[in-house]
């Protein structure tokens, strides 16, 4: 077993799947030369330029062509260079990929994976920092994965590529090279739609995903050490389909729920998590279902001081934990 970054894990998953299944190919802007993050490094050399395809600069085409190709025996992994640039492909994703199976009564399927690096904290300004999971997590017919660790990234990307339905696969940019983790060389998958308790605790249930997982774990350590508050940290990993049992079970135990996400507060996916807890976990609750997220401004302004002001971080999360614990 080797230690890998999340970026390497993403690369390896594509490499393995292309090796395993000749129908799998990668397409997107600059992927042929390895991609701007180097996630597709070497794929063109290994599998030839016909399986690692530099497309024209046109996101709607990337997705729309992938859809068509997937109807004809290809399993495309389409890369959107930054999640911020997925919007021109919105119609193809929502009207087409997500509904192909439903509208044809199961006649056609659309086994595509759309990878997109997302998230802030990297001085990317308002066009290289966005979170887009709430948009797609709301669309029936799409599966949406938000990975934050090397192990999960490899296992979930393999599941996504093998999935018979369209998967939006969001990789948090700041987690790309954050740390290394043991990642098996062997074939393994992590199932789509299953959350994981990343830290056990008994006082508060903290539900999160993406980069906020790491900030939350750090905050949990801090409050454990400084305040003796024990926080259970749940990594959703997939936001659609949503594994609500895992967090409801935890809230049943702790009685308190904190939902942490990086996206704008209003209408972010954490609202859905909070709403489920407020309905289905109501009887367990000993305190308000609390949300920590970015304020409702474009994420994120470029200047460091502004970006830091906007994004949630371990301190802000720890503060919220303390307040909720004291409730």
């Amino acid at each position, binding site marked *: 077993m080797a230690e890998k970054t999340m970026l390497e894990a993403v690369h390896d998953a594509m490499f393995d799947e292309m090796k395993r299944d000749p129908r799998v190919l990668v397409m997107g802007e600059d992927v042929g030369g390895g991609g701007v993050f180097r996630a597709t490094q070497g794929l063109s050399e290994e599998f030839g330029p016909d399986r690692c395809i530099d497309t024209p600069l046109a996101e*709607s085409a990337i997705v729309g062509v992938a*859809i068509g*190709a997937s109807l004809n025996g290809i399993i495309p992994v389409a890369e959107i260079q930054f999640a911020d640039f997925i919007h021109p492909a919105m119609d193809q994703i929502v009207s087409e990929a997500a*509904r192909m199976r*439903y509208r044809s009564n199961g006649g*056609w399927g659309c086994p595509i994976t759309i990878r997109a690096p997302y998230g802030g904290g990297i001085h990317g300004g308002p066009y290289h920092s966005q979170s887009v999971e709430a948009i797609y997590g709301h669309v029936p017919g799409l599966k949406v994965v938000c990975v934050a660790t090397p192990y999960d990234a490899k296992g979930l990307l393999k599941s996504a590529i093998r999935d018979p339905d369209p998967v939006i696969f969001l990789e948090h940019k700041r987690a790309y090279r954050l740390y290394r983790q043991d990642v098996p060389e062997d074939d393994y998958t992590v199932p789509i739609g299953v959350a994981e308790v990343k830290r056990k605790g008994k006082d508060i249930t903290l539900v999160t995903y993406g980069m906020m997982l790491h900030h939350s774990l750090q905050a949990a350590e801090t409050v454990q050490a400084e305040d003796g508050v024990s926080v259970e940290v749940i990594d959703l990993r997939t936001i659609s389909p949503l594994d609500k049992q895992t967090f409801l079970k935890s809230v049943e135990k702790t009685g308190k729920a904190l939902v942490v996400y990086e996206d704008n507060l209003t209408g972010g996916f954490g609202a859905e998590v909070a709403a489920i807890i407020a309905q289905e976990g109501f009887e367990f609750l000993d305190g308000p279902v609390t949300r920590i997220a970015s304020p409702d401004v474009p994420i994120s302004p470029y200047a460091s001081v502004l970006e830091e002001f906007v994004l949630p971080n371990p301190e802000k999360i720890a503060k919220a934990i303390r307040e909720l614990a004291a409730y």
Partner: protein
Amino acid sequence: MVSVSEPPSELGLSDDQLLDILYKMMLARATGQRERMLNRMGKAPFAVSGEGHEATQVGTAYALLPGKDWVVPYYRDIGVALVVGQTVRDLMLEFLARGENVSSGGRNMPSHFSDPKLRIVSGSAPVGTQILHAVGTAFASKLRGLDEVSMVWFGDGATSEGDCHEGMNFAGVHKLPVVFVCEHNQYAISVHWTKQMAVENVAVRAEGYGFPGVTVDGNDVLAVYRAAREAVDRARRGEGPTFIEAKTYRLVPHTSDDDDRRYRPREEVEEWSKKDPIRRFQAYLEEHGLLDAKTRDKLAKKAAEEVDAATDYAEKAPPPDPETALRHVFKEEEGE
């Protein structure tokens, strides 16, 4: 505009095929008319047909190998669906949103054709999106080394959408085996083509993508067929895409929700009725001694009977089970 004047034999079509072409045109017309009638009778909330487009639809689709080539139509393409193998019964089941319908089981609006075994790709309503899907199926054919051709149909209005550009550009760069068919009926609902584009022939755009564009008389089924045939052959030879602009006219309102008297002078509709592609092809066949009044009436009767039978069947077929609304959002496990 390319127009056909030579004898039919030049096109490599047998007499039977010529009559079959005529029949498919008549059948498409009869189906569309029936659907509009059923709508007016309150039996279906919506109807959209391609009356007037039959030469364009049948002429292009006729150049394909059904079951092998990829068919990516839009909502007006009853004629296309019939040529590549859907039956009027399929269409009527779809029109009346019956559970049995192969296109969508009552989920999609009428005339959103789909049939995996015929390689008719399920369509949506957003105009122009299907262009990219056809580029995608063609891309797969090329990557897989298969000599399939993809054909996609869309209106003049659709050429304004970004997806049309992105699709043509992608196809040009990769020299894909795809044929773009623009059914240029001069209006996008009420908007005249002169508000849609600043060029006389939108086919000239193909040049900007590195492949040929041709403009044909879309009411001349053999002219259309010849252009389609050349394009399909070219594609199959690996020489890349072709854009076919077929100038035609819809003889009826945009859909059952539309009142075209608001925007089309009656004289214009009159004028085009005289150019009716079915009557025109009949006259041509008669001229060449391939059709007489008796055969024509026989074909008309046959079409009417086919439509009657399909309508009867579909009217009796049950609506979908309400609970099926929850199915097929994702792939179901076997036996589910």
